[in-house]
């Protein structure tokens, strides 16, 4: 079982991205959960949302305490929330930043852990013309998960989730943002 914790701000779409991830995994015949840590949601307020992914049924119904993977959707959270909380030395971090993994490691003084970085903000502004960070971060996460779920299944799920709600142009821009982040994400 892989446990994932997302750090984002209200309005950035992290809850939706975590739902899409769970949905894609389940469509591939495996097991997954997406459990948002609902509070009194305010746009811009820090929030957490969780995923569990497994080959076997998952019975846990509680928060993720020791995530194997941490996704930081908003770079301003790097210094304001404890992103390493509960992580082990071998945890994976997927961070939205314009810096390289080595620069982030030095800047934040992170020891151990595998760092992935992607400039999701830039990708979102170029493809979606708005700072909608969830889909690019999902693309980067899928790469970091290294085969746990196929990026094409995620694409399919985005089409199913947004197909009726978005214009074709915006839907295609989201798919492009997904694949760009998947390709552009850097690791050490």
């Amino acid at each position, binding site marked *: 079982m892989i446990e994932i914790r997302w750090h984002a701000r209200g309005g950035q779409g992290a809850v939706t991205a975590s739902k899409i991830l769970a949905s894609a995994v389940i*469509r591939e015949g495996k097991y997954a959960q*997406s*459990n948002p840590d609902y509070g009194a949601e305010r746009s811009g307020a820090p929030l957490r949302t969780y995923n569990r992914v497994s080959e076997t049924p998952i*019975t846990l119904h509680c928060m993720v305490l020791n995530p194997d993977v941490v996704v930081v959707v908003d770079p301003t959270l790097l210094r304001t929330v404890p992103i390493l909380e509960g992580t082990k030395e071998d945890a994976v971090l997927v961070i939205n930043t314009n810096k390289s993994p080595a620069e982030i490691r030095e800047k934040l003084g992170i020891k151990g852990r595998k760092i992935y970085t992607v400039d999701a903000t830039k990708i979102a502004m170029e493809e979606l013309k708005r700072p909608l960070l969830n889909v690019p971060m999902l693309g980067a996460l899928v790469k970091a998960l290294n085969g746990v779920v196929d990026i094409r299944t995620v694409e399919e799920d985005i089409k199913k989730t947004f197909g009726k709600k978005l214009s074709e142009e915006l839907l295609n821009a989201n798919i492009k943002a997904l694949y760009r982040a998947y390709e552009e994400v850097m690791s050490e």
Partner: protein
Amino acid sequence: MKPELIKEVTYVPYSGNMAAAEAMRQINPDVVAAYPITPQTELMQFFADFVANGLVDTEYIPVESEHSAMSACVGAAAAGSRAMTATAGPGLAYMWEILGVASGMRLPITMTVVNRALSAPINIHGDQSDMMGARDQGWIMLFSENAEEQYDNLIQAIKIAEDERTRLPVMVGMDGFVISHSIERVRLLPDKAVEEFVGEPKVMYSLLDVDNPVTHGAVAMTDSYMEFKRQQRDAMEKAYKVIREVGEAFEEAFGKKYEHIETYKIDDADYVLIVIGSAAGTAKFVIDKVRERGDKVGLIKIRTYRPFPYYDIMDAIEASNCKAVGVFDRAETFGAVGGPLFSDIAAAMHLRGKSYPMVDFIYGLGGRDTNVNHIEEAIDKVKRLAAGEEVPLTNYLNLNE
């Protein structure tokens, strides 16, 4: 005429609310009356979509309160239609008066309760104080551990409620947010199979049957009120058998077993945990973990809360190697020992003439997280109790003090 959407068994990524709404679509009730309240709102939005898109034949009544929602269901069910609704926490509290009208009039209404804490302080998150507060209003009560169980239980609830031996309303609870808003893998059954399983509504004493006029909701004073209540107790006792039969029929049709209780690794257990709802799933994970270091812990998950399965629980405890019992209550009973489940288990032991050491754990009030560590902490206390150490009767998990 409702179109057929799901033609074969399908596995989907659904939240508890989506699963409950999908079950309602497949059940295709004649009347649904509901009022929105977090965390049930989404469920009724999904169902309202089905109505707007012509996917059900239901007459949907968006009423002005939960009191009205249940009143509309009472009227619809008395007229002879299959009526359903859903609510949560304070909404169930506001329904309280009419809950007794529904059961007293013996109307087979079915309802999802997305379990939510009661005010004050205001809290929208999951705990079971809502259903425990409505415990004595004459409804059959089932609890689900996860989204798929909510779906399966709701389908079974129709048959349980409408059986000629029961004719009682059924509420099916799932923990707010933890289940209602979390996505999990859910097995959906084909539309036709659900339709066939629930069958046509069994109409009894319909108000609209003008050839056989009947009175509903009449006055019954000192001369006859008690006899009505006596009949309700009798129906509830019969429901015990009906729930089991419907569970067996469900297993035969769809291959998944539903009993009054579910046990997990209980046969050789030295320590027994008794849990209702989503925390039972977490407990299963913890049991696997502590068994690796040799602690033989087992679980009894309660699915049927009313009628209370005294015999099933005691049979399971007696068949184990039980040295002590830890009861988990996600609701308070201020001024009584432990929570509501603790009292029921104490009564079960008395009925069997057995007395196992037991402690109560109040947990998860207002959605407070109950994770692996907290359940391990509870197991540790049960072990200490079994070893003869003094442990408080009522304990709190994950409490800041």
